[in-house]
């Protein structure tokens, strides 16, 4: 792959915002969204009149479903925005697709300041229906979805079944052990204890982890992320105008959105996933190397995905993920590569994608308080599992 122009280099993050993270929240989905968006706009030193683009992944793709109850269509009127470009939609490179799309809109000259947001109210929804997310409920009657129809007849009712099979394969091929994988959950919990907004803040030990029940072997309860009600927003700005914003711009040095395999949970590389395609593309668009990275926010919808992203991104060699995280020192806040510094989705809450961008900026701007890592300017955010994968390399200044 070679790219003559890397358009995202002309785009920077200039502000971030986040609502309360409730389990559940008493606020409406739109109130959470407005809370996050107002904070992000203000953080960038802008007013709403300067926002000329708005985007969300996946947006309101299913009529107010708790997975994504608010999309750009609804927000534009609610906040009185006047935009040149807006968009949403599920299909695309995973939970940070909104950032990727927003950066493209700026690079294409459609907008100067894009508001990217992501709202989720799965905690409230589960008070009504404990298994609201079951894959068998995505269709009524026979399963006509192009992807899920190949799994639901075999009683695959949750994504965990598919990702547990990636974990099992990784254990088989590379000798990865449960005690090693546990470090993802334990590291997230240790970080969450230092984050007042995190959902789970009680200490978690290796013994607690090993004593927890299996959901789908080899994955246990603590390998699953935790539902919440929250909204997260960030502001993307064109580089020349970003310089006039309040914060030191965090440049989008490179993005990865590639998919070189079928969009499928069982026909793809079971231990490389689409993450390998996206990561390869990202590194081909920059002179930075994995050793330049000071921290990483890596998707942990299920713990195994974080481990697979570490390998896909070249932050450790292929197959070495288990040994890399063993004992947890390397990936701890004080380690050589702190990960998921706000507690991730496993303990912080399933803000689903944008939460990682928010935390990456929090760390680069050194706003982390008691969970602040040592100062660094280069970080990675990567999100998605299976066929969903998007990643971005962020550089401050």
């Amino acid at each position, binding site marked *: 792959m070679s790219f003559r122009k890397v358009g995202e280099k002309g785009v920077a993050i200039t502000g971030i915002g986040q609502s309360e993270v409730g389990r559940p929240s008493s606020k409406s989905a739109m109130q959470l969204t407005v809370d996050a968006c107002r904070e992000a706009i203000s953080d960038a030193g802008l007013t709403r009149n300067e926002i000329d683009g708005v985007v969300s992944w996946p947006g309101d793709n299913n009529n107010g479903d708790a997975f994504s109850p608010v999309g750009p269509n609804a927000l534009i009127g609610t906040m009185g925005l006047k935009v040149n470009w807006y968009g949403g939609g599920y299909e695309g490179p995973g939970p940070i697709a909104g950032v990727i799309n927003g950066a493209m809109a700026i690079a294409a000259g459609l907008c100067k300041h894009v508001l990217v947001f992501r709202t989720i109210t799965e905690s409230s929804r589960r008070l009504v229906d404990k*298994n609201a997310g*079951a894959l*068998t409920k995505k269709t009524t*009657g*026979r*399963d*006509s979805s192009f992807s899920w*129809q*190949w*799994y*639901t*007849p*075999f*009683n*695959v*009712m*949750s994504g*965990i*079944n*598919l990702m*547990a*099979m*990636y974990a*099992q*394969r990784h254990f*088989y091929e590379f000798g990865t052990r449960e005690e090693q994988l546990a470090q993802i959950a334990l590291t997230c919990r240790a970080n969450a204890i230092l984050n007042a907004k995190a959902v789970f803040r009680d200490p978690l030990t290796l013994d607690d982890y090993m004593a927890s*029940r*299996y*959901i*789908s*072997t*080899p*994955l246990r309860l603590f390998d699953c992320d935790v539902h919440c009600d929250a909204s997260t927003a960030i502001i993307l700005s064109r580089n020349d105008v970003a310089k006039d914003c309040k914060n030191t711009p965090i440049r989008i040095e490179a993005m990865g959105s590639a998919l070189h395999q*079928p969009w*499928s*949970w*069982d*026909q793809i590389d*079971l231990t490389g996933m689409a993450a390998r395609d996206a990561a390869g593309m990202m590194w081909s668009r920059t002179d930075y190397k994995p050793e330049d990275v000071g921290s990483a926010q890596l998707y942990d919808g299920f713990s195994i995905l974080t481990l697979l992203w570490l390998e896909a991104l070249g932050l450790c060699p292929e197959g070495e993920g288990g040994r890399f995280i063993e004992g947890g020192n390397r990936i701890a806040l004080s380690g050589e590569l702190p990960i998921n510094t706000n507690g991730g989705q496993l303990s912080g809450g399933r803000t689903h994608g944008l939460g990682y961008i928010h935390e990456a900026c929090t760390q680069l701007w050194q706003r982390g308080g008691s969970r602040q890592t040592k100062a660094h300017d280069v970080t990675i955010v990567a999100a998605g599992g299976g066929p969903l994968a998007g990643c971005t390399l962020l550089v401050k200044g």
Partner: protein
Amino acid sequence: MKRKLPALSVESSPFWQGGGDGQLKILFCKACEYYFHPPGPVCPKCTEDNIAPREVSGKGSVATYTINHQRWHPDLDVPFVIAIVELDEQPGLRFVTNIINCEPESVRIGMRVKVTFLQQDDVWLPLFEADQ
């Protein structure tokens, strides 16, 4: 419990209904000599439409698996095994299924398996059991 069944299409019916004849059928491209799954109207390798369902041996091995313990539905019997089985006919020719008629803890990656069909309404689900 009754399983969720797939919507049948022209392309997918041979896979879901081949069991009615006791056959596991996979689409085969005669130009590429290539099996492919999931089904579609053209061969994904050459995008030509010189394709037809072909009976395969129904034998393969477990590429990976998981034992599901969570009762996602009150009527769901747990634990049970979900697996990806790779068929003998071609490397990478695989799909998600269940391994049945054995202790869940006895399943291993690489385990030899053979197809057995479970009929529900007009669908014959291709499940697998140990091939001893």
